[in-house]
């Protein structure tokens, strides 16, 4: 499916979803409450059939007080790709896990949990991935401070 047709199908089936601008790929954004049913449909609908979750990560929009979560999907059956964006508030960063749909999300979500502190509802094994279990803070947050950090030389 080309980008236009893909967006049309998606927005018809999920009215809360919108096209996300300012990206170089086909992308939609959806509220976090609608994320799980949307993702299930993306995987199961035969016209969409996104069978490969290439990547999942987050962006810390400190000034706006939210984390933006990004899911990067590809379908080896149809050869189309899609990026899904959603936002969670910084003071209550709770998102549903998609590891039931794509098992690779287990570890991608653990990485985001480790480095951003986003919590995944119903995740079966939510542990830090790279840092020690007793590490304080989440380094990829924009307001993270640590004794060994230096300011960029001007």
């Amino acid at each position, binding site marked *: 499916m080309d980008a236009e047709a893909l967006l049309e199908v998606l927005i018809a089936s999920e009215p809360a979803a919108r096209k996300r601008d300012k990206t*170089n790929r086909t992308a939609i954004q959806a509220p976090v409450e609608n994320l799980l049913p949307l993702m299930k449909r993306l995987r199961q609908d035969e016209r969409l059939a996104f069978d490969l979750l290439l990547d999942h990560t987050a962006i810390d929009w400190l000034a706006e007080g939210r984390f933006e979560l990004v899911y990067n999907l590809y379908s080896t059956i149809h050869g189309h790709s899609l990026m899904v964006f959603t936002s969670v508030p910084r003071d209550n960063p709770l998102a549903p896990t998609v590891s039931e749909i794509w098992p690779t999300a287990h570890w991608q979500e653990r990485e985001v949990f480790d480095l951003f502190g986003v919590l995944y509802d119903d995740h079966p094994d939510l542990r830090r991935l790279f840092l020690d279990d007793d590490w304080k803070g989440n380094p990829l947050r924009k307001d993270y401070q640590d004794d060994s950090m230096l300011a960029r030389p001007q």
Partner: protein
Amino acid sequence: MTVRIRTLEEIVRPPQTADSPFSTQEYFVNMGPQHPIAHGSLRLVLLLDGETVRRVIPAPGYVHRGIEKMAESLTYRQIVHLTDRMDYLSALMNNWALSKTVEEAGGIATNPRIETIRTLMAELQRVQSHILWWGVLGMDLGAFTAFLYAFRDREIIGEIFEDTIGARLTMNYIQPGGLMFDVHPDFARKVKKLIVYLRTILDEYDTLLSGNAILQERLRNIGVLTPEKALALGCTGPVLRASGVPYDLRKAEPYGVYDQVEFDVVIGSRGDCWDRYYARIEEIRQSLRILEQLIDNIPPGPTMVTKFAERIKIPEGAYYGQMETARGVLGVFLVSDGRADTPYRIHFRSPNFNNLWAITALAPGWRIADLIAIQSSLDLVIPDIDR
């Protein structure tokens, strides 16, 4: 709402009551972080029953340098230096992946000369990486001769790189907007000689190792990865293709000059260790085909389209670019706020990070010695997992 944060200690803590000292008991053993098979610092926590692996818990992070955090305060040209240090055996392809994403986002158009040289260099590196992997797999399974052969032949490609680039491992050669230097005058002659040499030597590899009965016993029907499972676990590259899924970005989403050359995507039929082994051997042959078609057809032109000191600014937005490295899909996710000459956020979707987790599905039920074969057939580069 059920968010439960766990720790590794919780999982590996022994049960309070063991039945009796004589009964069969499962136990945890650390394999790594320092272990010859890991080729870097990877820790696997194994749940064993005798010598049978029941569960594998990878605990990465020993080479975590915070590349993504560092990159937030560096300019795009400076970040290229960091990409060398992720998958160091695909350094040129990592450079290229970042450069390609920055060029796409910043609207920088390169010329055919730059793209052809990039493609040539990337394929040379793929050959070099696969040859090293072949030798290392031999060593892991007890055939040290293969390791010595591989290092001898890898050296020839290392010299070709050194002529042009001056470096052998951390290349930093492909930059946003072009290349650091033009190719060495001897480049074409040496690459042609290499193609002829490698064609004969690959046959020798087959007689030396591929046809060996012990190697076949150690690899055939071990660690079978079905296509559905490979996709669900996010595997890419030769690992996914060996399971029979023909997903290769050089065909699926051509970049460089891959759309102008003829080559075949190598796929396996069973997805066992042997298929992953032979897929890579066959990929070397395909890369040689690409090199052969391009080496006499490097178009003229400048090797840099931007001024070297030029500060690259990217308009506000989120951009994603990807590339097929020797191990799979390397994605670069780049977010710019449109104000600074540094990224607001950069994320690398590294192939090894996703390929690593296949081991949790493949190893259970096999012996420790088979785990070695499985891990070796996944061709992991640890710094790329941790970043």
